[in-house]
């Protein structure tokens, strides 16, 4: 495995006091990072999260736990984060602005820091219209950039938006998302620039299927010098079936699957689509790894997490540090289970 990310260690390492984030340490050392997404269940049961965390533990540096993704009610991200921590996996807590005003957002951020959740991913969130409660009140009191800015202020100025002081101040590795495939394409790198200016230290992208568009976006990211201020994790995910493909193309906002990918998946027999989707995903990972400025991959396989180890292995990404090493880190670190009582 290559140990250099564009030969540059982002300046973030100097700007921020070292967080207890393993993900941040991996990125700052210039190792190609791997994160994956774990979706909490719809139901009061933690065993599905446990199972997914165990499955992925040896293969990833951190797991995102989604926050009622696609505006569908699920167990909260912070609860899922605690469960994956118990399994020795470092969590990334996703937090969106759709369901919370600035009071709740800051409160949840404090909770994350207090419980030792070392990474947060701050986003605007899908509109309720797409979810299981289209009749819900959309909050959007802050937008993603304002939330990132707020988190940075809480950490560095030790203050809430109200001006009240925080004792002690929280600390997290702050992440953002970006979609290089949504218009205006020529402004998407600048939008990431705004997030970086606001305080984002790493970014995970939308699913990449169009490598050409992604390559051009990365070029703009490098031209703005953003790859030296923020770690870019390329978002990828396998297509399991033609039905899933159609769902992605028609119903998921901000998804773009180019025609050649559609043709490739439709060109194989029905029972071979999943295998082809898996292969395609591995190929994409191998391809994005060669693009300068890409510091890692983020694998999203909602409902098909079982496929992730094979995808990574085929892409030439070996197992990560052993679970033993991960747990050894737990002393006073992000895996401190004492918080769970």
């Amino acid at each position, binding site marked *: 495995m290559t140990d250099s990310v564009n030969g540059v260690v982002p300046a973030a390492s100097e700007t921020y006091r070292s967080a207890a984030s393993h993900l941040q340490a991996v990125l700052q050392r210039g190792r190609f990072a791997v994160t994956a997404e774990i979706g909490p269940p719809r139901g009061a049961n933690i065993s599905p999260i446990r199972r997914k965390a165990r499955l992925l533990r040896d293969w990833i540096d951190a797991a995102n736990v989604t926050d009622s993704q696609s505006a569908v009610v699920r167990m909260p991200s912070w609860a899922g984060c605690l469960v994956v921590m118990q399994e020795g996996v470092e969590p990334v807590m996703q937090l969106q602005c759709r369901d919370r005003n600035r009071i709740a957002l800051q409160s949840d951020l404090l909770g994350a820091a207090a419980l030792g959740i070392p990474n947060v991913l701050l986003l605007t969130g899908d509109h309720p219209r797409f979810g299981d409660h289209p009749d819900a009140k959309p909050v959007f009191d802050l937008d993603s950039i304002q939330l990132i800015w707020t988190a940075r202020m809480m950490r560095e100025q030790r203050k809430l938006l109200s001006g009240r002081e925080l004792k002690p101040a929280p600390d997290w590795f702050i992440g953002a998302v970006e979609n290089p495939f949504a218009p205006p394409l020529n402004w998407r790198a600048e939008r990431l620039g705004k997030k970086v200016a606001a305080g984002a230290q790493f970014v995970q992208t939308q699913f990449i299927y169009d490598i050409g568009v992604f390559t051009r976006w990365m070029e703009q990211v490098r031209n703005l010098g953003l790859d030296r201020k923020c770690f870019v994790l390329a978002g990828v995910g396998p297509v399991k079936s033609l039905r899933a493909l159609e769902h992605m193309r028609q119903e998921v906002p*901000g998804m773009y699957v180019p025609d050649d990918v559609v043709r490739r998946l439709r060109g194989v027999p029905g029972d071979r689509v999943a295998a082809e989707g898996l292969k395609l995903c591995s190929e994409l990972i191998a391809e994005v790894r060669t693009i300068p400025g890409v510091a890692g991959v983020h694998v999203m396989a909602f409902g098909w997490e079982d496929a992730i180890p094979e995808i990574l292995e085929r892409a030439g990404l070996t197992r990560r540090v052993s679970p033993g090493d991960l747990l050894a880190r737990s002393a006073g670190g992000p895996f401190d289970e004492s918080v769970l009582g």
Partner: protein
Amino acid sequence: MTTDLPRPFKPRTAAAAMNALHVVLDRNPLWYAVSVLLMKMPPLYGVFTLLERLVKYRLFGCRMCGQCALPVTAYACPMTCPKQLRNGPCGGVSPDGSCEVYPGMRCVWLIAYERATEEGRQGDLRRLQRPIDQRKWGQSSWVNYWHGDDEGLWTAEEDFDNAPPLLPVLSSK
């Protein structure tokens, strides 16, 4: 007028004309005096605010957030975005430029981007917009602007390259 759900609105005026008008309406001692006067006379303030509402609703689909961002969004109103995003488009814009919530309606931030590019004012979109004060809905943004209450609503363009000052804390009044 503001009870309907926000949906993208295509401005009915050119950004160039509004930028020119802004020079006349920019903060100065005269407008400050006007704002003080209006604030002292509630009935007059009411009439003025109604006029502002009518004009800006017609031109921009204004929703009377009371803290206008139009001068730095090429006069496309971000509060007509269904997510009321102040800092640019979300990631859900369709390849054809449609709003994710209202397919067929053009994303208001895409409109802002196109108008700003045409005017050579893309730099305006780089400014970081701080969270709005939700208590100001229904107030006259012109009065708030002339009176100086909007100071710090967005950062300078240069802050894009150099980390911006930390968020200005809103006054608690």
